[in-house]
């Protein structure tokens, strides 16, 4: 188990390390002069531009720049945002709780709704119920998240008037999480269904039935527990997708998380903030996947005992 944990942590560190390299290269791929592009909205003299270039270390050879950047990152310094004139890390940390709340709530909705739909479809395989559930799921997979968001906004805020637009408080959490949760529930429903069908066909489930155990007991104690393993294995990827989806959904609902910040940064060509966001995103996703791997190991004894 310890070996497994160390392995996963090392893999996460490699991911974050590669991210620092890519982020350093990013600014050099910009066609033209990145400093002039960044400050195109400001009144600057040539001398000021050169001063900024020196301050950002962009006049140094690229490998020196990389080590300078890595050194600063290790000290928790991601540079200053150009538009916000604030340390990048502070800005990101300030906005992150909102994004985390959105993604974790959405993931829970996705797991509950998608998981039960998929389980139900697998249990009633080949019936009208299965067909109905899977039609719903493929429709959900095909729908753009932000369109679902706009529909919910129209339906619940404007047509029915149940939820005020951007009212703040927990009410304002409902629509964004429903949008992101339901959109990902469709993906999970399809995954759960195929995982559960594999399980239902296995000998131990048939044996449990043959022993005369009550149906509910077989379903929950035997089938569901084994079915959870492949589903949990998918959650790491799902979390990453949700974080990515949040970027768009935050912009639909004016939700002040890191995703909205990232889009503003791209528009403003605020490279320190863009670099910081990518590194931050990679770190969060890598750490989340370590947590999910641990959960996975806890569920599946074969991994726990290092086989």
């Amino acid at each position, binding site marked *: 188990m310890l070996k497994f944990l160390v392995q996963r942590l090392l893999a996460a560190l490699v991911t974050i390390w*590669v991210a620092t390299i*890519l982020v350093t290269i990013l600014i050099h791929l*910009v*066609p033209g002069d990145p400093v002039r592009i960044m400050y195109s909205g400001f009144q600057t003299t040539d001398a000021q531009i050169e001063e900024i270039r020196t301050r950002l270390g962009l006049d140094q050879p690229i490998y020196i720049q990389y080590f300078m950047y890595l050194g600063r990152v290790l000290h928790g310094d991601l540079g200053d945002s150009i538009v916000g004139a604030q340390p990048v890390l502070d800005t990101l940390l300030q906005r992150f709780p909102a994004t985390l709340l959105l993604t974790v709530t959405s993931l829970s909705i996705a797991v509950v709704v998608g998981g039960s739909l998929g389980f139900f479809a697998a249990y009633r395989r080949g019936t009208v119920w299965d067909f109905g559930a899977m039609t719903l799921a493929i*429709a959900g997979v*095909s729908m753009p998240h932000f*369109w679902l968001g*706009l529909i919910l906004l129209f339906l619940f805020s404007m047509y029915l008037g149940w939820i005020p637009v951007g009212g703040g408080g927990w009410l304002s959490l409902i629509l964004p999480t429903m949008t992101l949760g339901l959109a990902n529930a469709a993906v999970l429903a399809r995954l759960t269904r195929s995982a559960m069908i594999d399980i239902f066909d296995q000998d131990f489930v048939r044996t449990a039935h043959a022993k005369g155990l009550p149906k509910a007991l077989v379903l929950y104690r035997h089938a569901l527990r084994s079915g959870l393993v492949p589903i949990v294995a998918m959650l790491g990827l799902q979390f990453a997708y949700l974080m990515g989806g949040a970027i768009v959904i935050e912009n639909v609902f004016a939700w002040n998380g890191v995703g909205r910040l990232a889009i503003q*940064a*791209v528009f403003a060509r605020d490279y320190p903030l863009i670099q910081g966001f990518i590194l931050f995103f990679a770190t969060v996703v890598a750490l989340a996947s370590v947590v999910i791997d641990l959960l996975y190991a806890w569920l599946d004894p074969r991994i726990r005992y290092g086989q």
Partner: protein
Amino acid sequence: MTTETIDTAAQPVPSSQALVALFRSPSGAVGLAIVGILVLCAIFAPYLAPHDPLRMASGPRLDSPSLAHWMGTDQLGRDVLSRVIYGSRLTLMIGTIAVGISLTAGLLLGLVAGYASGWAERILMRIVDVLFSFTEIVIALACIAILGVGLVNAMIAIGIASIPFYARVTHSIVLVEKNKPYFESAVAAGAGHLRLIFIHLLPNVIPTLIVIGTLGVSTAVLAAAGLSFLGLGAQPPQPEWGFMLSSSRDLIARAPWMMVFPGLAIAITVLGFNLLGDGVREVLDPRQRAR
């Protein structure tokens, strides 16, 4: 080695037979029909669209759906139906070009990594794995931050963002193919690197990648619509569906039709490619059909 040991499972189904099977599978038939209609819309857009998609004041502003304007008009009095029809051209172009970029680059990367083995493979696939974990939208955002805003740049960005996915798939197929007798005998016969990669491996990788590429069009269409919705892709006055949705946002209460129809067009298109992909997979993998 006797001929019996040569694996025949990877032999492609004859194309005419595959097409018949595709029509027999319900999802394949529906998918094929949707994609077919979409292609016809794109080709015959000038004949199908009742108005010029860019002409302002084709009718009154924000006019609700009527006989003259089946899908209503937008805030500039442009005919929404005509814009949706012309939008199919942009959508198909984005889908095919983006998938083309990621398929070609991913294929080459996966082939080289899988063929090379050793440290080169490990480093290449490690980078691919890391990029994969960044998710496509973040890579696409990074590319747009580099290239700047615009529809062509968005297409390139989405193409680049999906490279890790295709590289992974190709790599895993190559690993299987490398252990097959035909490949081992080609190595034993002294075939060169290029011959091994392009004459022996490539033809065996392509069928699977075609299936994945079909499904990939739907991902690319969704991603492009998302970027345009955020204002990073298509720019006014392009009749791009995602962009049309973003301009409908502030007018949802007054003109919900501006939001309904472009969204429906995206969903149906993506559904079409998803179903087509599912259908093609069923035809190629009979194990799935039994389910």
